[in-house]
Structure formats: structure tokens, C-alpha cells
């Protein structure tokens, strides 16, 4: 099957504009601007069943239709903050298939009536920002971006912007704050960005991968896209596979492929042939899946993963085998979230710090059952209380880890500790 998002794996030079155009590049955009109504573009995306790839899986077309048409101007922001541990798909897309991504941005802009788009990249992507700037310049030179496109009244400019190294700036409202030059801290929602976004104007924030799907959807039609994947989760997904597997990397598969297929057919199986003990399907933010045969045969789509008591999130599949103690895993995730908590709200700021204290104590040899209980209680106490999802994410692996792998929290843990 031909690649949809990772098309550079089929067409090696697709990062060259002429190659991209030889393969139908920017036809969808040109056609849309010249012949389609903005609403028409949104409708196709709605019909395609495309859901956001940033984690929440929110239907993309529906989000676009929420843009407040009484308040102008509108903005589109591509979320290229890609900071979830275990997620590394957006980077490959932007590095290797940049024009398809940029055309996706352009189509989103046309659909929601935006004349400016911003690509918010994590600070570490500074080289990538320079690279994208070049590509944007090429598009401007080629008349595919800029003023009065294709002899219509529609104008569009795309800009890149670098963050300063904070996981929280992937959260869309913190991202907007950061883009405005303020501290990267989430805003109270509602109002949501399609009503009140960048500079308090209606704004659509989409993940890089989400947007990269759009050109082929417009070109090949909603029905084509829907035919890929499952009824609940249409199309293809780039799964970032990591952890104790032989061949970590990005794999584009239709939704509904099973964990087993990903790990064993594509990822070459587990290192040293060990059994899979746990899976983190959404990076550090995951609820840990207790893996058995049934779990391995579960299709990877939003609804099915939920039946395992977890969420697919951004589909960064971290594989954990029986050489790794879950106690160590959650110590790592707690450390990460304590470090990344923005500090704006009390339960997350204090809770991650508190969990860190307990987890370190427990990990440094003092495995007092009361501490494990307290850790669990603190995590539970944070749930449902935080201002943004980061605080919730911080509790996921803790609660599910202790609930689902209780023996890993008892003395002595006679497991080798290996780097995940």
C-alpha cells in the first residue's frame, strides 16, 4: 500500500518542490482556492473522518467548522511542538515530506478563512525551522503562497516560530500564549481556540500529522480516506515505536492494525526475545497496558485501545518487557512531569512535586507499603482537579502502574533496570 503521510518513503525526493508538484503537489490547494468554497473543503475533511493526531483525536472537520465567523481575522497554527516522550513522527514528516505538510497548512487556512498561519516548533527543532523557512520561501517564489493566489483575492503567508523548550507548550492554549510572547501556560478553557485563540482571535490549532493528511484527502476524496482504517478511526496513522524492540521507528499503518503486527511484523519483535510486559501507547502520558495475548491482538484505534483501559493518544508506542520494573518506569514519568509542570495550577504543581518526593524515597530502597499507597492516593487526588491535561497525564502511569503491576512495588524487586 502506498504511503499517505510518509510518502517520502515511496518518493525519495518529494522534499524537492518540483518532485512534489510532479506528484500532484499543490493541485488540491490550487483547485480549492480556485473552485471550492471554504466550507466545501471543511465538508470533505469532515466526511473523511479525519481525527486530530495530536493526542485527543478530535474530529478535524468539526473543529474547523467551529471557527467563529463573526470575529476576524482567523489564524491557523500548526502544532509542531512534538514533545511527548516517545513521539518522533512530526519531525520525520517535516524533514522529509515538508511540502505535503505545508500544503495541508494552506488548505486548513483556506477552509477557515485564515490569511496567516504559524508553525510552532519546539526549540530543539531550530534547524528544521530554517529548513521550513527555505521551503516556505520556495513556495512564495513559485506563487503558491503570498498575495492574491492564483489570480483570486485569497492571500496566505506562513511563518515559523520557535519555542523555548517546554513540553507544556504543546498544549494548544499554552502554545498560543507562548506564540504571543508570553509565558507558556495554559489558558482556561472554554473559550476554546476556534472562538478565542491567538491574539484573542478565532484560531485552529492542528497537529503536523493531522494537517499532512489533508492534501490527499482533498485530492482523492473523503470516501477514499474513509476506506482506510476502521469505522471509528479513519485513515492511516504514523506509529512511533520505541522501547525494548529490535527496530524502533515510525511506521505508517492503517488504524486497526494490532499491537502484535506493529511490534512483531514491523518492529522485529522484542530484544532478546523477551515477552512484552506492558505497553505505553501514548508516550509518558499513557495509562499502562497490562499485556497479554488478547492485548497484543487488540487493534490500534481510538475505541479499541480504550477497552484496554488506556488511550491511543499520539500513538507513541513504548514497549516494556519483563526486564523492566514498572516502579522505575513511573519514577521516570513522574520526574518528567514534575520537570515539565508549568506551575500554574495547584494540584499539578504541588502534586507532581509531592509524587516525586515519594517516588524517589520508594525507589531509593525504602519501599514502605504506606508510601506506595500514599503515592497512589496523591495521584488519584490530582485527577479531575487540574487546569490542563498535563496534570492528568502525570497521574496516568502512576495509578495504572500501581493498580496493574502491584508486585513491582514490593521489596525486593529483583529485576534488571534497563533504559527504556
Amino acid at each position: 500500500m502506498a504511503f499517505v503521510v510518509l510518502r517520502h518513503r515511496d518518493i525519495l525526493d518529494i522534499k524537492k518542490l518540483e518532485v512534489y508538484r510532479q506528484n500532484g503537489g499543490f493541485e488540491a490547494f490550487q483547485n480549492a482556492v480556485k473552485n471550492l468554497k471554504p466550507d466545501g473543503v471543511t465538508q470533505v475533511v469532515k466526511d473523511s473522518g479525519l481525527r486530530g493526531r495530536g493526542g485527543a483525536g478530535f474530529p478535524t472537520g468539526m473543529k474547523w467548522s467551529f471557527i467563529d465567523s463573526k470575529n476576524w481575522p482567523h489564524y491557523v497554527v500548526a502544532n509542531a511542538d512534538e514533545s511527548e516522550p516517545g513521539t518522533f513522527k512530526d519531525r520525520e514528516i517535516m524533514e522529509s515530506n515538508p511540502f505535503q505538510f505545508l500544503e495541508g497548512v494552506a488548505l486548513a487556512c483556506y477552509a477557515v478563512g485564515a490569511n496567516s498561519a504559524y508553525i510552532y516548533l519546539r526549540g530543539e527543532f531550530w534547524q528544521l525551522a530554517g529548513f521550513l523557512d527555505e521551503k516556505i520561501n520556495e513556495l512564495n517564489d513559485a506563487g503558491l503562497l503570498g498575495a492574491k493566489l492564483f489570480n483570486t483575492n485569497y492571500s496566505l503567508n506562513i511563518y515559523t516560530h520557535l519555542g523555548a523548550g517546554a513540553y507544556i507548550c504543546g498544549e494548544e492554549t499554552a502554545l498560543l500564549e507562548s506564540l504571543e510572547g508570553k509565558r507558556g501556560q495554559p489558558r482556561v478553557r472554554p473559550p476554546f481556540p476556534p472562538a478565542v485563540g491567538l491574539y484573542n482571535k478565532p484560531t485552529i490549532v492542528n497537529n503536523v500529522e493531522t494537517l499532512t493528511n489533508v492534501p490527499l484527502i482533498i485530492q482523492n476524496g473523503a470516501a477514499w480516506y474513509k476506506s482506510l482504517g476502521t469505522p471509528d478511526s479513519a485513515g492511516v496513522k504514523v506509529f512511533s515505536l520505541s522501547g525494548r524492540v529490535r527496530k524502533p521507528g515510525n511506521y505508517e499503518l492503517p488504524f486497526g492494525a494490532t499491537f502484535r503486527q506493529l511490534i512483531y511484523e514491523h518492529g522485529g519483535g522484542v530484544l532478546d526475545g523477551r515477552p512484552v510486559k506492558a505497553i505505553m501507547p501514548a508516550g509518558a502520558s499513557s495509562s499502562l497496558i497490562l499485556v497479554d495475548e488478547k492485548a497484543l491482538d487488540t487493534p490500534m484505534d481510538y475505541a479499541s485501545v480504550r477497552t484496554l483501559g488506556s488511550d491511543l493518544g499520539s500513538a507513541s508506542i513504548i514497549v516494556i518487557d519483563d526486564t523492566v520494573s514498572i516502579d522505575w518506569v513511573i519514577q521516570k514519568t513522574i520526574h518528567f512531569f514534575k520537570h515539565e509542570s508549568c506551575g500554574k495550577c495547584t494540584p499539578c504543581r504541588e502534586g507532581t512535586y509531592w509524587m516525586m518526593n515519594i517516588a524517589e524515597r520508594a525507589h531509593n530502597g525504602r519501599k514502605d507499603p504506606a508510601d506506595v499507597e500514599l503515592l497512589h492516593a496523591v495521584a488519584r487526588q490530582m485527577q479531575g482537579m487540574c487546569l490542563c491535561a498535563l496534570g492528568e497525564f502525570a497521574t496516568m502511569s502512576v495509578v495504572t502502574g500501581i493498580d496493574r503491576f502491584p508486585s513491582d512495588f514490593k521489596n525486593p524487586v529483583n529485576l534488571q533496570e534497563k533504559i527504556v
Partner: protein
Amino acid sequence: MDKQVTLTIDGKLISVPEGTFVADAARMADIDIPVFCHHPKLEPVGMCRMCLVEIGRPIRDRATGQFVLENGQPKIQFLPKLETACTNRVEDGMVVHTQSESAKAGQKSTIEFLLTSHPLDCPVCDKGGECPLQNLTMAHGAGKSRFLYDEKLHLEKRKPLGELIYLDQERCIQCGRCVRFQDEIAGDPVIGFDERGRSMQIMTSSEPGFDSVFSGNTTDICPVGALTTADFRFGARPWELEEFPSICSQCPVGCNITINTRREAAADGSMVIKRIMPRQNETVNEIWICDKGRFAYHYTESKGRLTRPAIRKDGKLSRASWDSAIKLAAENFAEAGKNFVVLASGRLANEDLFNLKSLADHLKGDAVLYSEIGGGELTSAIGISPDTNLGEVGPGTTLVVIASDLYQEAPIWYLRLKQAVRRGATLIVANPRQTRLDDHASYVIRYAYGDEVKTVHSLDKKNKIGEAFTRSENVIIFYGSEGLGVEGSAALASACAKLLNEYGFAGKPNNGLVGVWQRANDQGAWEMGYRVEADLPRFLRGKVVYLVGVDPAGDDPRLAKALENAKFLAVQDILESATSELADVILPAQAHTEREGTFTSGERRVQRYYPALPVLGETRPDFAITAQIARQAGFIQEGTSVSAAFDILSETIPSYAELSYSKLAEVQPQWPVVGRGDLYYGGTTYENKHGLGAHLTTTASRGENVHILRVHRESAPRPQENELLAVPVTRLYDRGTTVLPAKVLKNRIGKATISMHPDIAERLNVKNGGLVKISFDGHSGEALVQIDKTIPAGVVTVPRSMGLAIHEPVPAKVK
């Protein structure tokens, strides 16, 4: 705008205005939802998660928009999660549970989380006893900590954000109120958060630290003892303090304040002022005061207080009885006839000014207000009328500020005008140089010093600004004395008044002329019929002068000389001064903190203040001293009851008609609710239980004819080749006798600093911060130079009351 929404909170059915947040709605209904980050004056942020409640909303039928019913009642849907009461707006049919098991569990959780890092050092904390965290911990906290005490964070406990405000990093609960106050209300975003997560800390980004004249207010709204003032820090426990309602005497705004006093061992067991706190008056200062009002109160405790009458004998001042002092004064005044002059300060009470003026009238003398701003009689004619509220003006109102730097001259007016713009009012700021208010103005007019009147004449031109002016429903003009003396400001006032009158912006609420005076009760003096004198040195020569609350000799050597050449000087004041040194008789007066009285604010609101401190020595209130002199001179005045004195005043002066002490003491419910039981909500600002005051009428509002004389002004002086035009400007922190004793303000007062354009500085070969000698009008002094490119070339600004006796624009030499 005033659509009401009906909802149920804890079973209580209430109606509140549309758009109200649930937390505020609860407060209106006297239901406590605990909050930390929320403050009724600030935008909601939902940070602290203290106000979590269960919120249910009626389900509506998608097709019809009607409520879906269940057993005849609307069906209510609750979210699985608790919601923040401070960020959710009320909706019709909403059901809120603040006391359910889950809501209480949420509130308890937040307290527990907060306390993991909080030191709970209440016994040594300045906020202890009036601390929302302490109170809410008592109400919602767990009895025992699950956080290991040894693992508590240890952070800096005395970090100066500036020299006025200290931060205790351990106590801060990161609610962001202080940051948001500085940003949203003060417009001085000079503090912010540094770092993130548990490392997040308040820091200052300005030089000097926490550079804002509103900084003290953050200590009132900080819900813990994290922010304290250098002045009150470790000063007293809140429960030891007594509270007395008063009015700030530092500027014409008339902020309502509460004076907290305590008997102090360090002061030999006498009562002293421990701190000044804001007192709510939504029509004047809301719940805020500026740092000058908060910190500049130490003068009443100054060693230099005059406490006993004295008479000059054989060239020396020596102690005398009140009887002999009064007799001496009265004899000299009565003899003088039209050579008798009252030179009074606008710091005096209305009752004082009234008695002084009637004494002068009775003796056929003259009553002069010691001020450098003229034209005040026009504010009495077409000033602000009753029912004006700067806190409510919005669309349809144009506010004009001309020749005044409100941030420096009347900080709370700056704040109120800025807020009015946010509500939709139009603001025109016209000044010869950049001022802080420019940032918030709809239109900024820049004119050359000397072109004030011309600028007023251009306000109704056919352009955008002219339209904003002429098409407005209401116009208020604030005029000041930036770069002007008595004559210049009088001419400016007359031009403004003529324009307002011509367009009908007078005699009705939210219209009229406001003077940005130098003192708290200059307005009262104008209402009483005082005048100002442009050439005081010449005027005073040979006169019998009754100086009340003024120190001309200390202000200007030329005035000192004039007083030396006067015939007789009676000095009535609270402090020793260069003027009291020259006195023939000294009449020691009570400070306004020691007595009762009223001030008339620049907005023409009469407000009462009450005694906070016991009487010092033999001092007497000014109105009583004057009444005793009058009696000696054969003229009966009220000299015992200040309220009776006010009654006579109100019978005599038309604009005060029908006002009385009891009327001034009336209060109405105010929003937001503040006060002792509501500390967690509004902060430690005091509730107003002693009166909101009342507005004066104007000639115009009474429907009488208004005559506005055209005041002609001699054209501004022209500096010679090697001279600059020195213009007087006003700074908040000056070397005034009431400010200087406040030691915490020392750095903010600093040295006399003159400002000039970089080109001029280059020509004079001076550097920023360099010391120069400036001389004008036979007077010279030293000053530091500040280079400021917004100052017009050819001009040097000279601050008033900083040791350089400038009264009006003069050619000056700078070396």
C-alpha cells in the same frame, strides 16, 4: 446589560446580572466559595483550584431550545468533574453545590496540596490573623499532614522585590494575584513569574525593583503573608491594631483610608500609626491607594511637631499661654484691616478654611490659597456635578487630560481613567511630554510648552479628535499645572471652561472641569472663595499675615525675604519650619490624623475623616484656633463642634447646601463585598462603615448663570541664546514636609532631578545622572540630570518641591 439570570446555589434561589461568575454570584448571596486566585477586580484565571464546586446545567432540547423536563422540573446535567466557580459564568437554571461531598473533597485536596509547600509559620507571619490561607485551612484543611515535614521546600524568606515590598518565597502560593494586579489594574507589569512548576517564583523585572506607585496594594490582595511592606513588616499583629476611618491628605483624589494604630513601647507607650490601609469607596478609590498615601504618614510623629503656643519676645520665640497667643494675634489682625492676609494651605479641613475665610472677610482682609494653580473658581462653577462616577463612565464619555501627568500627580485618577478606557470611554491626553497615561489614551496630543490654550482651542476642530470631543455625550476635562504657573494655569482653566460651556458639557453628571490640584483640599478653598496670588513675594511685603499650614520661607528664599519684611506673622501649623522660625506668634495645630473634619476632593466630593490618634500636647484644631481669634476680634464663629461649623458652612456656601455630617456618613452596599469576614475574597482592604461622602453642586447644576472670564496670559518668557526654558513639573514623591519623614520612601524621593533632551545634554556636555548647577530668577541649586528624549529641545523640566524654587516657566542657565 443588566439582564438578570436566576440560578440555585446550595438550594438558595438567586438572581444576579448576566455574565457574573459563579464565585461572585455566591458572594452576592452570602454563600462562601473559597477562592485564592480569584479576585472580583481581576480577570479570572482558574489557577489555584480552590473554588471547585459541582455545577449542573439544565439540558435543553436541541430543536426547541426549551428545557428538557423531568417530573415537571428541568433535567439537570452535572459534569463528571468538579468545575471552578471563578471561571464559569452563571446560566439560567444552573444548579451549584458548594457543600456536597465531592465539592468538599476537592476543596480539601487543594488546601492539602497548597500546604505541602507552605511553611505555616503563622506565629511569625504578618498576615497571621487576617490570612485567607490560615482561615481556609481552619475551615477546609485536614488535621494532619501527609507530607513529610523534613522534605519541605526551603526558599528565601526575605527577598526584597524593591525596597518597599518584600517577598517570602516559601509562603507564596503562586496565585498570581499580585502579577495580575500590576498588569491589569496598575498597568505597571513590573513583576512576574520566573521558572516553572514548583520552582516558579515571583520576581521583579524593573530597575529599581517593583517600580510602581501602586505596589502596596499587592500586599492587600496577596492571600498569604508572601508580600509585606517594608514599612509594616514585623510591625504588629493585626489583632492588636485599632482602626480609624480617614481620608488621605496627600493629593486631590481623596482616597478613603483606614488608619491602624497601636500603643507602642518603642514610642514610650504612646499611640502610633502602624499602617495606612485602603478603605472601600467605589466612587473614589475602589479598594486601592497609592504608595504615597500608604507610606507617607510618619510626619505626624515627627520630632519637629509644634506642641505649645509661643510668642516672640525680645527677638526670641518663647512659650506662651493660648490666651496670650490668641490675644496677640487677634489684636494685630484687627488693627491691620485690609493689610490682613490669610495665607492658607489646601491641606486644611473645609471647616478650617471656612472660618479663616470669614475672619478675613470680617476684617476686610484677603484670603489667599497657597497654591501654584489658578482658575479653581471655574471648577466651582462648572466642575463635576453630583452623581458623577468615574468608576462607571464608559462609551459615550470623553475624558481629556491636559497639562498633567496623572500617574505622578493623582495616581488613583490615572488608574480610574485607564479603567474607564477599558470600559469603552474615549481618552484624550494632551501634554508637552510623554506621560504614563499616553499608553492608554485613544488620542495623544503633543504640544509645545506654552501652547496649552491654543491646544484647548483646537479640541473642537474638524478632525478625529474634534469629533471625539464634540460628538461625545459627556466630557470631563482634567487640567493641571505641567509647565505652568498661576497665570498660565488660570488661562488654561478659562479656555477649558469656555469650551465645556459652549458644548453643554457642564451642569450634568459626568461632565465638567476638574483641577489636578497640589493638595487634598484645594478644591474646598476654591469653593469657599479663596484666590491665588501670582506674585506672592511682592504681595506679602508689609502685610499682617496669618499663615496656616504653609511654609513659604522653606519653599523659596524670595518668600522668606518677603516674610521677613512683613509686618506681623502668625504661624499656625503642625510642624516647625523655616516659616515658624520667623513667626511673631506660633499657634500649634492638630494634624488631620488627630481630629475630625472634612475634605473636598478634586472630584468635588466632600468626605469626613475621624481622629485616629490622641491629641498631642496643647495643640488645637485649626478651625477652633481661628474661632478663638475671631471671638477676640469681636466676631462669633463656631469653635467647638466641627459638625456645627460644617452646618454653618453649608448654610453659607451654596455648593455645600443641604450637606451635613450625618449625610456624609451615609453608606450604601458596595460591590465587591470586602471586609473582615471576606478577606479571602476582596483582600485586607477595609469595609466602608463610616460614609461615602457626597458631591457638591455647581453653579451650572443649580441652573444659575455661569460667567467665564477670559483670562489673558502674558506670553511665555523667551530664553536667551545660552539659556533653556525651565518648566515646573510635579512628581509624586517630593521633598514635601509630609513626605520626607517617610524613611521607606527615601530612595524613591531621591535627589532633585531635571530632565532634558539628549541633544541639549550633549550641547551642555552632561551625562545621564550627572550633577549640574541650574540657576534662574536669581536662584540657583544643584540637580541630577536625566536624559529623556521625550522632553522637547530647549526645555528643562524642574520638579516642584525638590529644593529648586520654581513656580512658573522661567529662562534658566544650566552648567
